[in-house]
């Protein structure tokens, strides 16, 4: 049986573990207010974000990235947020994001 202090410490470790290990990537548009708000949110919470502004890409790279983005969520609105391996969030859904990232 663990005490309260240990339990809190463990929770903190778990939280840190989750936040540090869940890689967050996103497919965004440079013109989209929701994508901008999402990027700002991640910055404010100091969470590393790997994002691609799909509209700024050209040629084969653009086709490849669009295909990749829609493989996660076909027909979704932007940003398409991918957390870890398989958590996909469509659009800047702040409550959902807070829940998944334990914020």
């Amino acid at each position, binding site marked *: 049986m663990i005490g309260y202090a240990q339990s809190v410490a463990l929770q903190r470790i778990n939280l840190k573990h989750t936040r540090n290990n869940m890689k967050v990537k996103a497919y965004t*548009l*440079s*013109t*989209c*207010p*929701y994508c*901008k708000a999402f990027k700002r949110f991640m910055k404010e919470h100091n969470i590393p974000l790997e994002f691609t502004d*799909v*509209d700024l890409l050209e040629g084969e790279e653009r086709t490849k990235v*669009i295909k990749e983005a*829609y493989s996660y969520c*076909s*027909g*979704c*609105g*932007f940003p398409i947020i991918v957390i870890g391996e398989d958590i996909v969030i469509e*659009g800047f*859904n702040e409550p959902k994001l807070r829940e998944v990232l334990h914020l």
Partner: protein
Amino acid sequence: MNPETLKKAIKDRAKREGYRLNPDENFLESIFEGLYKNVERYGYPSCPCRLSAGIFEEDIDLVCPCLYRDPDLYHYGRCFCGLYMTEAYMNNKDKPVVPNRRPMEPAKIEKIGSRIGVKTVGARYRCKSCGNEITVDKVGGGVLICCGQEMELIKEDK
């Protein structure tokens, strides 16, 4: 067109059509910025929240106000990007999420973009969904779309 004339045109249109614009000034500015960026790079104000192809014929349904604005305002009280709103939506506590109504299959978009549309003056078209009927006064060559689908040619000329 400059950013100010674009803003004015959108504000005037909203007033004329009885809609409201998003009351969040910062958000509104962000949408205007996105729209104007699209005017600069594509030549038309396509929706800043959707991915444009940069080819007018393919993006015709995304030019603001987009083809999906009215059905979205009708069903949800807000357009997809949140630029236009209804009075009721603004007063309502529930703010439903607006799903993306645009068909995303590239094949479908490509098909509409590459098809030859209106050919003759006087031709009549009907919307298979709402029943709107229109007569062509001037041929531009594009495909006519109503309620999210191509209109049906019912009479070639007068």
